[in-house]
């Protein structure tokens, strides 16, 4: 089995077990103040990391290209409360435009 399939299956089962744990363990295990605190803030740290890794890096290098233009346009659209799908279409259009202009 390929590494990709292994990652897909292991992470899928793991994420399901995390859901099941919430319905199965005593509430007091999860509702510790420190646990709640960490869980509340993990998505902000990881999603922000993914934004910069997907938008500004290629392998070990920091790269500026059409993806940064897409991010800037997306931030503007999100600030104007555009629906998600429109945000993505505008970001894609910005990326394509930079690609065409810079050859």
């Amino acid at each position: 089995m390929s590494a990709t399939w292994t990652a897909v299956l292991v992470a899928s089962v793991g994420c399901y077990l995390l859901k099941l744990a919430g319905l199965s363990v005593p509430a007091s295990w999860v509702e510790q103040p420190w646990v709640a605190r960490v869980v509340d803030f993990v998505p902000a740290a990881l999603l922000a990391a993914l934004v910069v890794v997907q938008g500004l890096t290629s392998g070990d290098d920091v790269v500026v290209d059409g993806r940064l233009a897409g991010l800037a346009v997306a931030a503007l659209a999100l600030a104007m409360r555009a629906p998600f799908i429109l945000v993505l279409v505008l970001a894609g259009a910005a990326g394509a435009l930079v690609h065409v202009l810079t050859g």
Partner: protein
Amino acid sequence: MPDPARARTLRDAVGLGLAVGLYGVAFGAAADAAGLDVWQALVLSAVMFTGASQFALVGVLGAGGSALAAVGSALLLGTRNTVYGVRLVPLLRPRGPLRRAGTAHWVIDETTALSLAAPDRALAGLAFWVGGATLYLTWNATTVVGALGAAALGGTARAALDAVVPAAFLALLWPRLGRGFPEPAVQRRVALGGAVVALALTPFVPPGVQVVAAVVAVALAGRPRRAVTS
């Protein structure tokens, strides 16, 4: 007798399920851009079924990251569903192992928000199951559309897709930084910290590891309840 509360709950559940479900197109496309095939994308939507973790897994793999880093980032993002489950138990009261196992599969951001917003316990259950079913079906169907659609794209459209993937992560992050979430200023500080850590580590660690390492930025949130304002 007409029941406006029930009608409103149903409308909200179906509306949110459809709106968020359409976002599966972006996931399918991101999975294809990361080199996954349509079956792998579909298994993620059908079995993992938690958007941020799915995007994280394909994002790390697409950046050239190891399977371990990809699984790690998906699991870290999946921990919040454990907390949602704890909050849902008193509302849904799933009885027996089978019922609990079935309910668990649909414990995600949207179904939790719908259930907690419902006016009573019966409607909370309705919101969970109707919202969950609508979202599950739409999300899986649009995942296939996105994966097959992206696979047919040429050069310029590929560049467009490359710009869509980081924007998708920004769109997932954005609501957490605004007024709808508790402590938005602290969320913004943690997000900035995560971004700085990831960017600073990029030249030095294998691809994907910087995403998992960014979790250290959670320390910037400070102590429970007594948030430190810097």
